[in-house]
């Protein structure tokens, strides 16, 4: 059972990372425009910019 000594803290750490990630995404406004985020990926004119054809 000694494996618990480092597995449990590791599991908690992973969970906390997820929580921190969520709180960061909340603070940086990623949930302010959910519908917009869904449709913004559709136009692909940014690809043309990358190839430098525009």
């Amino acid at each position, binding site marked *: 059972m000694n494996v618990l000594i480092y597995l449990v803290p590791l*599991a908690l750490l992973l969970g906390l990372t997820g929580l921190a990630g969520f*709180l960061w995404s*909340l603070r940086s406004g990623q949930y302010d425009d959910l519908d917009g985020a869904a*449709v913004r990926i559709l*136009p692909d004119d940014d690809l043309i910019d990358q190839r430098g054809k525009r």
Partner: protein
Amino acid sequence: MTETVDLSMFVEPADAGASHMTLAVEGISCAGCIRKIETGLAKLPGVIDARLNFTQRRLAVDWRNDEIDAPRIIEALERIGYRAHPFAPERAEADDKAQSRWLLRCLAVAGFAAMNVMLLSVSIWAGNVSDMTQETRDLFHWLSALIALPAAAYAGQPFFQSALRAFRARQLNMDVPISLGVILALGLSVYETATHALHAYFDSAIMLLFFLLCGRFLDLAMRRKTRLLAGNLASLKAEFAHRLDASGELVQVPAAALHPGDRVLVRPGERIPADGTVLGGNSDIDESLITGETLHRIARAGAAIYAGSINISGALTMRVGAAGDNTLVEEIERLIEEAVQTKSRTVRLADRAARFYAPIVHTTAALTAIGWLMAGASLHDAIVIAIAVLIITCPCAIALAIPAVQVVAAGLLFRTGVILNGGDAIERLAEADTVVFDKTGTLTLPDAQIDQTPSVAPEVVERAARLGLSSRHPLATALARMAHQRLPYAGAVEEPGRGVRAFIDGEEARLGSAEFCGIVSDAQAAEIGPGDASFISFAHGATTATFAIRQILRPDAAAVVGALRKRGLRLMVLSGDRAAAVAPVAESLGIKDWIAGLTPTEKISIVELLKSQHRRVLMLGDGLNDAPALAAAHVSISPITAAHLAQAHTDAVFLGESLMPVLNAVAVSRRARALMKQNLALAAIYNVLAVPLAIAGLVTPLIAAVAMSGSSLLVTVNALRARFRPSIRL
């Protein structure tokens, strides 16, 4: 003359010569719009950043002051094809946003903690029936405590704060038993852990918080969504005024930016932007939004005029009045204040349940402890069992039962064009047994409509209507709505105060007053008869026609009124208009109780009289004169076109020309209330089943967890049934 536009009240200064503005944009429907607007604006010189929020239909623009200004940005948007309205966010919106983020943070913390504690708990439950050593179990319990205690201290704040507020006010709400249950469960668990016991309740406490926070967050998200839309609609409705500066220059400003003492020019066809007095000019004004009166009033120098009236015939200059100048508005505000004060706060279903529930739960727990002590149990065992009773009765399901239904029902109403001001409006709407209608603007359409006369040929109507497109006069714009081909005639000239003329097929056509059109005897006007109609004449060569324009009923008014009656509601019409105008409307709708010519004070006293007869009044009205009655009624609904003051005191606003949303609101609310009661009953049944187990001392944390999630899930799923639209029969 080019007019300058002053939008400074909406522009926020940003850093170093830059500015920021938020705009509500109309007509955004697809992904393409985002790109069109953002790239279109980015191309303008001086625009630093333009970002469209697709969810809120709002655009945030930043620009450098020396290169471009706000009006030019709005013009540019119009050229791209979108109408944008500058927008000043209300404080309530910012508060909501902060609150919603806070709840989401609490929810995230509770969710994280619930998952991890549950992971440890499941191991313990499994270990308790197999070979877990005491040391491992204690370690897991201490780990649970390490996660659960800080998480509960953070995520429980919304409940602890609310419970504390209720406690200070010497009241009981649902948050009191919730807070007590959570704190006792955690305290007991720590004690049990320290004494190496088999069971601890960390998982129950934290899971309870997680479920409840879900309910709170959804409730707030629903309210935020409706408030955002209401804010956008308000900015779409916002009027502009032509302010005369000291130099005599005309500046276009938002009506909200007018100050007392400003001089304002109101052209024919425009809405009067603020309360005040007439300085010069002579005009008929339509005050139907103020008093319900459909006959026009003549305004001369010195007359008091009110925001929301329409200037019909001549240009007026007016001085914006200071607060205190205006007797009518002051009187109405005083009446509203009285109405709000005397309005007995109806106790909401949830609070009623809490008042009933909390004492029973706490007494049961106390009796359980005493009972076990008398039966010879140790003090420790008696207290553990009593706290188990408190945990199992912690009103998770009851606290979710009502908000869950409210969220679902409000969402459904939102889709059918009803915007609720608050979730508790649903309960009060369901209780209404009397409907009081205002006539003008509520039963009838807000704008006057052409009353089709059978004697006029359709092609003549079309020609007259197209000519009307070139005029700003209210009668002409009402006629212009009839035009199928929405293309004004080239070279149309408007003669202010008289009419508009143009050459159609080489012959001069005129639309305007009878004498402007050269019609001497108004034979057709006489044929239509007297009453509340206004007339506009049309002449094209030898063809002449006269159109009557009057307030007409909303297209489905009769059907909706009939359906409301069928649902057992008593109906009444209270109008500020003349009896001659009210009688035909009431008669065509089959409403026998109608009273005309009422002042705001009389309206409110009739509503109070109905209340004293124990009737629960649903008031429908739009005018300034209805505002006190709207505030006094049990529940109230306004059309979106209502006067500001009226809308501020209603529980719901409906969109569109149809009266159907009102019927929807009543039907959906009644169904929602039935579901709320069902949910409360389900939660009660759960308690009846679980509490005896707890009193008998048989509840383990596993049973508590299963019972709690099971009952919460059950009421939530039941609430989702409110989504299905009841089949509404007219």
